[in-house]
């Protein structure tokens, strides 16, 4: 693992967010500042407003101090219809040429930050946007931010010149108790790994990687990637609630995750086949706590967390469509591609509608 300081771009102080600015030097020979991130994927905020952004292409996590760019003109997040077309237009292209890779809400301003890849294939470039409470969209000048980064451990390439086609896709980030947690998938090893590294990133902390096995239902133990997860607390002990592909919900106490060792999580629900979880948030309503989980093919699920501590581990084959901790399907939320918690009573989502993607603030169900 390595750490590096992101160079502070020598930009005019006035060029804060929009990158509009009166560059008065001759244009000829001017060079665009290269973005420090080679790609941008999942985002998460720390409680102090530090933005953690995954750069899957570089298998790195960046901690970005947004500084003045944390704040839009208005607090909150207003609805934006045709978000994909608008972001694409600002990037000088069409909606089909961009991929929205994540959505995260700033914990203080409640502005929404949207990560985007512009272009096709290996030539695609990263961009980061902020949407404020008036629906104003600003492009964040990432290269002008101050921050640090850490690189995830890459499995060794053994052969001296063996062709290495491995790539790392990072599926989810979360910040909890001073550590950044990372779930990822490789295009070669089908393994279940969670990394975590303390923040501030330092050379002394190389981060830890834990392999979590899924004890399934015929006394067979297999590997399967944890796709989405959320830090959680049971009896004041830190836990991770993770959702695997196809779609067991599993809990594991952080204290048991010993670096370099394998660990078997406890399955507390089976949420259905042919599906992957997208996002999870925790929220309170009417004095009860819920996990809201969006999925690719099984809609949005509202899961009471009251039973998580005492849930009976699923150790026998589930013959019904789902099993374990009960949930309620939120029929009003459809086509959800990204989801985060906006405030105590709202969620913000990016949803597929006819003709494009809309950013909307919705009441928490």
């Amino acid at each position, binding site marked *: 693992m390595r750490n590096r300081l992101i160079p502070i771009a020598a930009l005019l102080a006035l060029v804060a967010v*929009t*990158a*509009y*600015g*009166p*560059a008065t030097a*001759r*244009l*000829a*020979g*001017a060079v*665009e500042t290269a973005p420090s991130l080679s790609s941008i994927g999942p985002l998460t905020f720390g409680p102090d407003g530090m933005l953690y952004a995954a750069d*899957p292409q570089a298998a790195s996590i960046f901690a970005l101090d947004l500084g003045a760019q944390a704040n839009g003109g208005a607090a909150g997040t207003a609805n934006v219809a*045709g978000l994909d077309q*608008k972001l694409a237009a*600002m*990037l*000088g292209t069409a909606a089909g040429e961009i991929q929205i890779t994540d959505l995260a809400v700033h914990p203080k301003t409640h502005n929404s930050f949207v990560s985007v*890849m512009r272009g*096709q*294939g290996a*030539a695609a470039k990263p*961009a980061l946007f902020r949407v404020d409470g008036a629906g104003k969209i600003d*492009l964040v000048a990432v290269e002008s931010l101050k921050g640090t980064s850490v690189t995830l451990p890459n*499995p060794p390439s*053994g*052969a*001296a*010149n*063996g*062709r290495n*086609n*491995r*790539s790392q*896709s990072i599926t989810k980030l979360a910040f909890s108790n001073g550590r950044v947690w990372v779930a990822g*998938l490789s*295009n*070669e*090893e*089908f*393994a279940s790994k969670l990394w975590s590294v303390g923040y501030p990133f330092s050379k002394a902390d190389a981060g830890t990687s834990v392999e979590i096995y899924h004890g*399934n239902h*015929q006394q*067979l*133990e*297999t590997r*399967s990637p944890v*796709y989405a997860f959320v830090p959680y607390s049971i009896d004041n002990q830190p836990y991770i609630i993770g959702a695997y*592909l*196809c779609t*067991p919900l599993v809990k594991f106490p952080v204290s048991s995750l010993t670096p370099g*060792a*394998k660990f078997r999580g406890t399955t507390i629900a089976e949420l259905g*086949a*042919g*599906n*992957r979880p997208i996002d999870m948030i925790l929220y309170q309503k009417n004095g009860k706590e819920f996990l809201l989980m969006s999925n690719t093919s099984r809609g949005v699920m509202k899961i009471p967390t009251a039973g998580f501590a005492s849930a009976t581990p699923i150790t026998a*084959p*589930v*013959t019904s469509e789902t099993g374990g901790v009960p949930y309620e399907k939120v029929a009003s939320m459809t086509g959800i591609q990204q989801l985060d918690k906006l405030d105590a009573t709202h969620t913000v989502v990016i949803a597929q509608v006819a003709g494009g993607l809309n950013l909307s603030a919705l009441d928490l169900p």
Partner: protein
Amino acid sequence: MSRRFLAAWFVVAAVVAIVACGRNATVPPAVALSVVLRAGSGAQPAYVEVTGLSQSELSSLRARHDASDWLSLLKVTVGETATDGLPPVQGRYAVTESALAFTPLFPFDPGRAYLVAFDPAHLPHPRQSGPISSVVRLTALASSPTTTVTAIYPSGDVLAENTLRLYLEFSAPMGNAGALDFVRLLDERGQDVPVPFLPLQADFWNAEHTRYTLFFDPGRVKQGILPNQQLGRPMIAGHQYTIEVSADWHDAHGQPLAAPYRRRFRVGPAETRPLSMTNWRIAPPPAGTREPLIVTFPAALDHGLLSRALALEGAGGASVDGDVVLEAGDTRWAFRPRSPWSPGEYRVIAQAILEDPAGNRIGRAFEVDMTRSAADAPHEAFRRSFRIVSAGF
């Protein structure tokens, strides 16, 4: 002429010139204003220029600092016509010695139309003429479908019933789209096998976007969990299947594949045993030569992992440099050293991540019976020794 070279050329789609009327004695002399698209060069991407501004107008623009003023003066939007609610292209404004320039933060797309609107009424000393607009576009890339599927791994005639993943290799870089909309698994009757693959549009491309990893749905491959019980495995031993790749899958230039791709194969029994290095046949070449060392496996290993998870070390643990070729449907690993072999002991090193196509690793099957297996300590790597001897011994 390469595509990239072509892309560097530009056209001026329209040049609109106006002449200021010059009725106001305080404004600069009447000069024709033009909007032009300038070619990119080196690290400088193509940019838009407004020419015809007087030296005094350029001087006053240099003193301008408010971003919103620039936008009211010169605005670039995507498309041939102004669309309500569509924000302008983000970019940088610069005043050169002879013009006002706008460089987009991300290079203009070849072939895409951009509407450039310039309003002289928002000059520091407004001109009386009305706004001008011009549609500009870079030359579209001259491209035709040429990209093809070059291989699918495992490449053997028979795939294990519990095969975990396929690698699809292409002759040129592909676009962003994943495989799910473009790859079908067909049974012997030509019928689609329902939902055979992992329902995940993740980025399983290699860095160059020339190889895509397509995972079978592990919920169906693994035993004893719900998808497996409900639907069974996607492929059944004893039957034939066809993988079909649609030509509608677009490459990095937005072109479809030159042709659809089909491959037929048989499916054999599930492979559930852990790998064992003792089953590998090692054929050491004679010392003093650069003949390849051949390691033969009883069955194919995973193509991607085999390319990088095996290595050689010599006396004292020094790594041996050489070139690797995978042969015979990934059942053979051929290693040709950069320097001639020396007599003595060598070791084949297998990283613990090495797997067969069904996910079985050395000493650990993909699925482990928890009632029989003791907890195993994670391994970094496994080694097996062999000796190189001089010819004639």
